[in-house]
């Protein structure tokens, strides 16, 4: 790709990443939520890989890091759901943090934490799948 495409993609991918974080954090106030925001997060990294080519950096290293982050995010999600077992209403998946006023950013109990964990997990999953396909394509047709 030419130098203009590379520089523009570097600038835009930062804005896409920030927009993905905004969609995740405001999941309980505006449309969006964890799943849409997570795919935005992965889209920022996929744009960088597509613009700069797949031989610039060590993609196996990135794939391992993304896989580890995905596993950690789903682990924290399950720990949060199991924590509802011991705190508050003593049910699995219970909403044990205080709910606050309607319409504020810090409200709705434990739902924003669920959104963040699901967002990180979905983003890392899609990045791992894409990098696995790119690395495999390189091997079969150099």
């Amino acid at each position, binding site marked *: 790709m030419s130098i203009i495409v590379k520089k523009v993609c570097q600038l835009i991918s930062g804005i896409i990443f920030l927009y993905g974080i905004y969609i995740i954090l405001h999941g309980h106030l505006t*449309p969006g939520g964890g*799943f849409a925001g997570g795919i935005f997060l992965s889209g920022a990294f996929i744009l960088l890989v597509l613009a700069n080519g797949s031989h610039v950096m060590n993609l196996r290293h990135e794939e391992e890091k993304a896989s580890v982050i995905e596993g950690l995010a789903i682990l924290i999600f399950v720990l949060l759901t199991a924590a509802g077992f011991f705190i508050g209403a003593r049910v699995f998946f219970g909403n044990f943090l205080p709910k606050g006023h*309607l319409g504020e950013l810090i409200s709705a109990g434990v739902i924003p934490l669920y959104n963040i964990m699901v967002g990180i997990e979905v983003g890392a999953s899609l990045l791992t*799948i894409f990098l696995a*396909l790119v690395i495999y*394509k390189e091997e079969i047709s150099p």
Partner: protein
Amino acid sequence: MIVFILCFILFLVGLFGVLTSRNIIKIVIGLSFMEFSVFLFLALIGYVDNGQIPIVSGEATSRVYVDPLPQAMVLTAIVIGLATNAMLLAVAIRIYKKFRTFDIRKITSLKG
């Protein structure tokens, strides 16, 4: 009522693609069409005439809202469809590496 019938026709187009295609990529595309028709059907069931977007805006709650339950189901189903497509494409590219073709009638030998 005609919207439901058109949705069913889209499902039949996807089914035709899955059953009679010889190219693996066309089979994946046909499966994708079947999933789209089901998402549209579920979203059509939940629509109420003159309904609002299901976000409470802080005023008095005497408004008519669109049903949020089918939307929650479709939200889950869209992401599951993406995971299924990704796995099918991984299988397709593995088949291409071994047999150098996407034709399903030439993939007949079980031996490695």
